[in-house]
């Protein structure tokens, strides 16, 4: 079958599956709409959380990021998994016990304060909206490449599918589609990786293959990779790249990603759907199992793809040998050149492709022709995962599967984010702040309306992505780390932090983090308005803006404790509430409210 029709069948089939699930999992009450009726099995919830969590960035970009920055990119691997330890130990069980529908609801109730609730809604909306832009553009790109429609048509189709199952089914519909999406994406990610690992190392498990012997050289894969990179003038794969990230910066960046992960509302609300407190703890473990399957594979995909590409371009080695002839390059070069993500320029006119690092110093022994500059002029790291099956010459159905997997990753995360946004609006803004007398039916209508509106906004942002779309990591994780995570942990672990302290703390964390990011990335990300370069040397104390969230969190804690101890103690009933949240007993009763 033609590749186009194969892609169409696999992608269309996966979409049909999501729609069938949506019709089956309709929501009839606010409890079903917000928390899937709190009846989701912990393993199921783990799977749904994994899909919710793994975004277009995890699926498409992470392996490419690792391939081109090696050890330094470990911050993402540790940061995006270590957050689950914090969730399981510090947040999920207690928030499940409290039994709220949304994250701002806990903050508003625990700190008995409408301003606290509204600040939490604000932080949630900023963090989630910036995050959703990347998902929507990801869907558009995947459609454009694999189904040859325009980016915007692809985006509309994706948005329509999400609209269908999230407006109809709320959290219930989203949960079960996310389970299906996880299955699609995990196969799409691991199948090509297993084939490549077998080809390169003979080991069927990519995570083990990474530390095995490379069959092409008889040496360990990473040793060969480092040697080949050195020949081409690139830095070592396994060493700390000091110009890119210092030890201090890497530590703070990892910590920011960890506490940011634990503080992202769309992940937290997934733990509201399990029946018991003990299920919430266990479910975090299952979520990490399902995430780890992909995250232990990603570094292998990165290293192996990098080596594969260099071997394709320098088939006879790098020592006084010919580079590959441009005429005879594999067909995937042509495929990806048309998308603009890959670019070749025969600078020295010898008909061969010399790929090396121009800034890498004297490379006398490289190739046989006179070098006139690196000829692989464009190579977007995102290609690595999407072109992986083609690079490894895998059958057409694997290519189609990767396309469906990329879309599953983007759609599942988009739905989770939209759920977090719409429930904060209908429950915290309408029900708990503006119109407390609203009936359940009325609130459910608002919930569906808010979801539809959020999808419309996200689609518009996907069509007109603001210049800062690429900065979401800094903004979303920074805000979640500096505002939501500290507020939640203080609400559980301290009886003393009061309304004034919490609001002062959150505002300090929010303003400090956002201003620090704007000082380094430009005010509202407008180029040219930044005061400091966002590099290790140029930034304040050598801390890049992506790593600042944990400092914002520390300030949040400090200000909240200082202000609380200088103001009135928390009322007795709040102390009682905190005591109650800490003990699992009686979580079933909380559900019945």
């Amino acid at each position: 079958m033609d590749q186009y029709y194969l892609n169409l069948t696999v992608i269309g089939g996966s979409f049909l599956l999501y729609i069938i699930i949506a019709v089956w999992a309709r929501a009839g009450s606010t409890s079903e709409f917000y928390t899937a009726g709190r009846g989701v099995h912990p393993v199921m919830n783990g799977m749904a959380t994994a899909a919710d969590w793994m975004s277009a960035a995890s699926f498409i970009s992470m392996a490419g990021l690792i391939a081109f920055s090696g050890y330094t990119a470990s911050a993402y691997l540790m940061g995006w998994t270590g957050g689950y330890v914090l969730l399981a130990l510090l947040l999920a069980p207690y928030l499940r016990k409290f039994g709220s529908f949304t994250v701002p609801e806990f903050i508003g109730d625990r700190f008995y304060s409408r301003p606290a609730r509204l600040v939490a809604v604000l932080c949630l909306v900023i963090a989630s909206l910036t995050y959703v832009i990347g998902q929507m553009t990801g869907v558009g790109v995947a459609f454009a490449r694999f189904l040859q429609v325009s980016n915007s048509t692809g985006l509309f189709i994706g948005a329509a599918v999400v609209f269908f199952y999230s407006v109809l089914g709320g959290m219930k519909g989203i949960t079960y589609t996310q389970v299906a999406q996880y299955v699609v994406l995990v196969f799409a990610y691991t199948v090509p990786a297993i084939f490549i690992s077998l080809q390169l190392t003979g080991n069927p498990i990519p995570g083990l293959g990474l530390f095995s012997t490379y069959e092409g050289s008889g040496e360990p894969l990473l040793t060969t990779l480092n040697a080949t990179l050195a020949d081409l003038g690139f830095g070592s794969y396994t060493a700390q790249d000091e110009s890119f990230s210092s030890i201090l910066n890497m530590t703070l960046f990892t910590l920011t990603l960890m506490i940011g992960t634990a503080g992202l509302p769309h992940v937290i609300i997934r733990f509201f759907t399990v029946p018991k407190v003990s299920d919430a703890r266990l479910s975090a473990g299952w979520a990490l199992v399902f995430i780890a399957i992909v995250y232990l594979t990603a570094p292998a995909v990165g290293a192996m793809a990098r080596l594969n590409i260099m071997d394709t371009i320098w088939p006879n080695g790098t020592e006084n040998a010919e580079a590959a002839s441009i005429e005879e390059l594999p067909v995937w070069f042509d495929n990806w050149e048309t998308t603009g993500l890959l670019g070749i320029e025969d600078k020295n006119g010898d008909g061969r492709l010399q790929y090396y690092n121009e800034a890498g110093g004297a490379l006398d022994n490289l190739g046989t022709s006179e070098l006139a500059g690196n000829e692989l002029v464009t190579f977007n790291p995102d290609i690595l995962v999407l072109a992986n099956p083609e690079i490894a010459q895998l059958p057409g159905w694997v290519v189609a599967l990767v396309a469906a997997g990329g879309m599953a990753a983007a759609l599942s995360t988009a739905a989770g984010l939209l759920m977090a946004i719409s429930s904060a609006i209908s429950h915290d803004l309408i029900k708990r702040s503006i119109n407390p007398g609203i009936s359940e039916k009325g609130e459910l209508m608002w919930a569906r309306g808010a979801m539809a509106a959020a999808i419309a906004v996200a689609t518009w942002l996907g069509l007109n992505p603001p210049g800062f779309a690429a900065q979401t990591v800094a903004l979303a994780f920074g805000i979640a780390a500096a505002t939501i995570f500290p507020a939640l942990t203080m609400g559980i672990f301290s009886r003393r932090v009061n309304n004034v302290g919490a609001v002062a703390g959150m505002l300090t964390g929010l303003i400090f983090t956002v201003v620090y990011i704007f000082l380094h990335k430009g005010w509202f990300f407008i180029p040219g308005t930044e005061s400091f370069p966002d590099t290790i040397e140029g930034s304040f104390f050598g801390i890049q803006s992506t790593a600042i969230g944990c400092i914002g969190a520390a300030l949040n804690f400090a200000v909240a404790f200082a202000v609380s101890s200088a103001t009135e103690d928390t009322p007795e009933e709040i102390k009682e509430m905190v005591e109650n949240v800490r003990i699992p007993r009686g979580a079933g009763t909380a559900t019945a409210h």
Partner: protein
Amino acid sequence: MNNNPRTPAGRSDRTPSGSNDTAARRSRDHDYWRKNIRIILGCLAVWAFVSFGCAILFRPILSAIPVGGTDLGFWFAQQGSILVFLVLIFFYAWRMNKLDREYGTNE
């Protein structure tokens, strides 16, 4: 859901029994919480040791230990810490279930 923000959810588990019973339960609940905090701190120490310790700060010290073509610190950074995180969460879930049974705080 509860409409009054001042009334904590899940409060109904307090039975209207004698004040002595309540005081005894309260002190057991406080004990339970202290033990929980100790377990959390232990787990977080391991969490920080493998990720910030082995993978970043102590990597130079561990660089002499080879693992599959590179060093132990690199392995911890790209694989080891994720595996330890997994063990930590399941250990915590198991340990807390046990503690819940001991203190009768389970659901």
